[in-house]
Structure formats: C-alpha cells, structure tokens
C-alpha cells in the first residue's frame, strides 16, 4: 500500500453526529462511526438502518444535513478527487454497462482510479474464476460483484469501502473474498465492510459497529460486544431461592422457575455476581449459555436504543 499522502493516520474514517433526511424520512439520526487505519471494520445493521446512506456520504455522493464526516483526513464532499485516488468502492448492487465486457469494466475502473496492479488483476481474475470476455449483461449478480471486487482489489489504494459485497457470491467465492480482504489488511490497508453475513463478519472483522434507525447502537470488538449482551443461566439449587431476590440482582432479568430449576438471563459482565448469589444457595447443576452471534445481533437489531420516530428507509 502506498502512503504518500503525509504520515500514516490512525483514524481512517471518523463520523460524528451525522444527520441526513430524505423528505420526511430520517435516514441518519446522529450517527457516530470510527474506523482505525489498518483494521477491517464490520458495518452492520438491519435493512434501512442507514448503512448505504452513510457510505454515500463518505464517498461524497450525498451531502449530510448535519454532523461531521472525515475520510482519510479529508472532507468527503469537498476533496472528492484526492480522496478517491486513495480508495476503492464496491456498491451493494453492482450495475455495469451491459455492452462492455467484464474485462473492459475492470480496466476502465482501474484507469479511473489511476491504474491497476497487473499482477494482482490476473491473480484476482483467476482466484475469483471470472471470465472477463463476457458482456456485462450476461453476468449474474455474483459475477457482477466479482467484476467490481476484482477492480477494487487490484487497485493500488489504502481504503476499501465495501457495501454488502458478497451477497451474491457462493461459499467458495466468499472464502476467496475473505482471504483477499485479509491480504489487503496485512499489506496495511483499511476496510469498511457492510455485511449481513455473520460468519463473514466473525472471521474477518477486527471491530464492528452496529447501527439501527440511523444511529450507532454498539461499537467494539466482537468479544466486547459479547460481553455487553446476555448469557442464559439455568441452575438446580440445593436450597429454595427467592425469585424476587434473584430478579433484584444487578443485570439479571427473565427470571422464572422451570421444573424445580431457576432460569434467568444476565448481562455478561454481571455474571460473576449472579454466580456468587447462586453459590450461596448451593449449586447442584448449572448450565450457562453464552450468546451466539445470531442472538447478539438479533438482540441489537431488535431492542437497542429507542427507534427514531420514523423508520429509516434504505438508501
């Protein structure tokens, strides 16, 4: 990766209190996002949460109504030309020119970004198993995404902005994608990866941000996020325990009694306190289920901070 533009920055993307409305629809409602240089940052949220709108503002395609957005140290709206030399973008729904071939599109996008790395171009074409002589109109969704990915991954840039880039790829190609993205990071690159595919997020992302209704809900490493969510605990106790007392413990909820056992869920960082209390009642049997990634996301998608008055639309 080249870093000819001054010293290496520690923050690649910094967004604070970003706002954007479309007519009466609030798409972004004070969004914060921070992506450090050299990390793969997962950008998650339900459909219509404002992911694509955020990305379009970061690319200078749309103008925000409030808040600040800084990309590679610059203003994304004003410094389009210089900033775009340093990044490559793969849109969520890749549309290509129907009568150009895949190869022509890759070379065009590469030339517009200031040139392609020929070796990487050939390598990526082979790894993604893409026929560059086909006209774009005959490509499937997955193949159109491959065209955009090959163009982006063979460009000499510092930042990749990827909007659900693998939604049309088969599992084999998704593995190729993950490898390529990891290599890009290993060479010093930064990636903003919007995705719905949890396994992909889990295996490549260093940190994630979850947004909902145009607002940031959580940010952090997956371990930190796990820590923030709830663990399900079921225990068979020697001595009868008072359920109201249990429910009064910090971080404990969903208390109920099942077949002589007590069951509850607890915020993971309050697990220690719960175990102490249960220990005092003599534990005969204990099961503790840490949240699965699915539960973690479902939890955040569904119930986090109160939604803005109007549902945000997908932009």
């Amino acid at each position: 990766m080249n870093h000819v533009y001054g010293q290496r920055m520690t923050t690649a993307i910094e967004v604070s209190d970003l706002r954007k409305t479309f007519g009466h629809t609030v798409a972004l409602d004070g969004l914060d996002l921070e992506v450090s240089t050299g990390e793969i940052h997962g950008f998650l949220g339900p459909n219509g949460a404002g992911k694509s709108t955020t990305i379009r503002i970061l690319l200078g395609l749309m103008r925000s109504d409030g808040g600040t957005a800084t990309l590679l140290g610059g203003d994304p709206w004003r410094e389009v030309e210089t900033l775009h030399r340093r990044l490559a973008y793969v849109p969520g729904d890749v549309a290509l020119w129907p009568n150009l071939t895949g190869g022509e599109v890759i070379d065009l996008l590469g030339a517009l970004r200031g040139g392609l790395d020929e070796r990487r171009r050939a390598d990526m074409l082979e790894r993604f198993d893409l026929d560059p002589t086909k006209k774009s109109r005959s490509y499937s969704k997955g193949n159109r995404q491959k065209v955009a990915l090959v163009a982006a991954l063979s460009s000499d840039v510092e930042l990749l902005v990827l909007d659900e880039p693998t939604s049309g790829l088969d599992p084999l190609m998704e593995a190729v994608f993950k490898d390529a993205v990891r290599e890009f990071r290993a060479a010093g690159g930064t990636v903003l990866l919007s995705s719905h595919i949890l396994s992909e997020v889990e295996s490549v992302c260093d940190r994630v941000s979850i947004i909902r209704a145009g607002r940031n809900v959580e940010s952090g490493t997956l371990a930190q996020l796990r820590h923030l969510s709830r663990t399900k605990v079921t225990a068979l106790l020697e001595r009868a325990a008072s359920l109201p007392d249990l429910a009064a413990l910090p971080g404990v909820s969903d208390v109920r009694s099942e077949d002589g056992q007590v069951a509850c869920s607890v915020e993971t960082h309050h697990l220690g306190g719960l175990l102490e209390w249960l220990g005092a009642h003599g534990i005969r049997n204990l099961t503790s289920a840490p949240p699965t990634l699915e539960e973690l996301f479902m939890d955040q998608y569904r119930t986090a901070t109160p939604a803005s008055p109007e549902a945000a639309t997908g932009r």
Partner: protein
Amino acid sequence: MTGFTGTGSLLRLAARRDRVLIPASVLAIALVVAMAAKATIDLYPDSGSALGAMRSVVDNPAIVALYGPFTSLSLDAFATFKTILMGAVFLCLLAYIVVRRHTRTEEESGRLELLGAGAIGRRAPLAAAVLLGTIAVLLTALVTAAVAIGVGLDSSGSVALGVAWTIVGLTWVGVTAVAAQLAETARGTAGLSIGALGVAFLLRALGDTAPDDSPVRFLTWLSPLGWGEKVAPYGANRVGLVALGIIAYAGLVLLAFTLLERRDLGAGLLPSRPGAARGTLRSAGALTARLARGTVVGWLIAYGVLAVVIGSIAGNVVDFVDSPETAAMLRRLGGSAGTIVDTFFATEIQVAAIAAAALGIALVTRIRTEETAGRAESVLATPVRRTPWALGHVLVAVAATTLVMLVLGLVAGAVDGQRTGDVGASIASLVGAGAATLPAVWVCIGAALVLVGYVPRFTGLAWPVLIAFFVVGELAELMNLPHWVASISPFHHLARLPGGSADAVTLTLLTLTAVALVVIGLAGLRRRDVPAA
C-alpha cells in the same frame, strides 16, 4: 394454447402503470386533429376559398412527402391532411412505447423474472403487452373518429380516419412485439421498431412523390403508413383495407409468439458474442462516448438515408408549377421566402433539427439513466469529479447532434447538386442551413440538463416539452394560437434556410441561452445527492 395464465392480472398491472400515459396520449392526438380541423374550417367559411388554396398545393411533392397526398378536393380532406399521417406516426410511437415498456424493458430490468416466478404463464407478459397496445390503438382511433364527427367533419370520412389509424397502429403493435423478441435490450428494441417506422415513412414518401406512371409508386404499398393513406379518409374511404392491417397484425403477433418460444427469458434471438478481455477506455469521457457510439452511428445512417431521399424528392419538386399563390400557401405552412425547392428543404431541415434535438436529449439525459441504474456511483466513487463527468455527456450530445445535421446537409447537398449542376454550392447551402438550426437543438439539450440538475425525477418532462415545440411549430398558425405560444419554441426563432437569411444575433442569443442552461444545470447537479431521492 397454454402459457397465458395470469394475462388478465398482468394486463391490469400494465394498464394501471399506464393510466396517465395512454389516456393523455389518446386525448392529445385526438384534440390536435380536432383543433386543426376546426381552425381550418373557421378559416375558410366557404369551401370555394379552401379549394382555391388546396389546388395550389395538391400536387406539391414537398408537401406530399411530409404529409401524404390529398384524399379528395373537399374541405374535410383539407382540414385533416396535415394531421392524418402525422397522427398515424404518433400513434405508432404510442403503440411502440406501450408494447416495449411491458415486454423487453421489464425483462431487461429483471422485474419480469420476479413475475415469471409467480403463477404467470410464459406467454402472458407478451400477451398482456400486445393487448394493452391494441387497446391504446383502438381507443385512439375511436376517440379521434368521434371527436372529428363532433367538430363537424363528414362521419363516414371520420370512420375511415379511425380505420386508417387502426391499420397503422395495430401493425406497429405487431412490429414492436417482434422487435422485443429479436433484440436483447430495450434500446435494441427501440432501434428496430423506430427504424422500421422510419423506413415505412420513407417508402411511402418515395412512392407518393413519384410520377403517376412510375413503378416507384408501388413503394407506398410496401409501407404500413402507406396502407393508412390508401384508405383515403374523407375521399375514397376504403375501409375494406382494414383487412390488410388485421392480417399484418395477426401475422406479426403470431411471429412474436413463435419467436418467444425459441428463446430464454432475458435472451434475444440476435446473439451476443464474447468480447475483449482487456479494455481501452481510460477516462469517463471515453466511456460516455463509447456508450453513445451505437446510437449515434444509427442516427448517422438514418440521416444519411433521409438526406438521400429528400435530396431526390427535391428533383420532383422542381416539376411543380411555381405560382405566387402556391408560394403564399407554402409560407403559411411554414415555408421560407425562397423558391419552392428552398421551402421544401427548409421544412425538412427544420423537422430533422427537432428530431436531432430528440437525439441530444436522449444522450444528455443518460446522466440520469446512469444515475438511476446505479452505474454513476461506480464512476463517481473514483477520482472523476461530477461536473466534468456530466459535461462529458453534454459534449457528446452537442457533438452528436452537430454531426447528424452536418451529414444531413452534406448528403442532401451532394444529391441535390446532381440536379443543380453545382455540387459545391448545394452542399454549402444545405450544410449551412443544417448548421443554422443547431443553436435551437442545443437549447433543448441545456433545458434537459436543467431538469436533470434540479428535478431529476421529472427528467422525462423533456420529451413532452420537445413534442410541444414540434406541435407548436407545425400547427400554431393553423390552430390560431397566440404568437407568444409559438415563440416558446427555440425552433420558432430560426430563419427558414435555405432561402431566408440567417440572423446572427438570434443564433448568438440561442447559443448563449444554451450555454447558460448548461451552466445552470451543472450547478444544480453539483449540489445535489447522487442518486437523488
């Protein structure tokens, strides 16, 4: 017959999507006929004065080439002669728009795939599109005949008018249905269907203007537009010719369904070949030019053919008896102050300029097409800035329109030079006449860019505006519209060339207007979101 399941629901869906387009077009076409007829009748209270005016133009090949022959020496024929053929052309365009919209455009966008996965028969989408096109044609014919009778025109002649349009319109429903099977893209379908319409128009123009005993006259019978003419509304009223239209319609629709059986969803019958593995496009401007290439080459060929035809017809015009009375009539119809041949060229070049403006609008509004298709994003996420990208589209539109008008003048001049014996002078005169229309064409391009820049959702308004310019220019005087209405059209301000004298001040003002509109449009585009909400 199977595969038609769901035709009814698709037809309702299509009719709902076109609930404004079809009624508005039907009314517009019918009202133009009625207003033009009414104005003519009011203008010539006694048929004697009308017949005097008619006799002066009845055999003028210049007029006949554009509007078709007079069907009889009657006031009713005179009141409708400008609108019968033009209306038929517009009706063909309506049939083409409706059929293409619900077949190839849907298929290309992938929406048909969504429907096709439901309980929809394989033949149902084409059947629904053909039915809706048929309904639109029959409705136009019916309403126009009724309105014509309403303004006092002969009733059997008005019925014959409806029949003539039915023949032409239904044939174009069939032509477009076949084109949508042959071509793989909506744009390809447009090329085939509109191209066929152009050929039909030229065939009948050649046939109609040939001398009475020439075998060339038969060409009119090869053109569906010619069949409509042969019905001769308000003249011979040969309504029996409807059989010809029905046979063509049935044959073409059957052909379309046969072709449909032989291809896959999304594919066309004209195959696409593998292309280059490496690209040569290095800039956004090169991309814009490349995307326009096919369209511009098509228009150049069409304008070359058109130029040969009008250059040849000019030879026939000379045989026409020149009289002061005729000249006066021609000026009333929008001619120039020069000779009859000049008038003929001036009229043809003006119409060609308006058509070139359509090319310009189509090319410059690709900015919006690229945006809504999601392709603009891919380009604008690279270091390409928005203003140069959009300016590239403007320059391609300006260059393409300039090129087609110059080719028109050049080829027509070369052909006409054979008659006059002075090829150089003919070329200079006609190239000059073509070039002098360009500032008005550029104003249209600028106006379309302003729509793209400020009200992108209403970019399509550029088309009704251009059609209004055309109708106003053609018919303002006939319909007795106030002067300012006509002056809205940039084409109204052009000198009639050749024959008249070019007005440098007007041309400069038009050019400056075009530049100002482009600057304003680019400023709007620079400020707004891409894609716009």
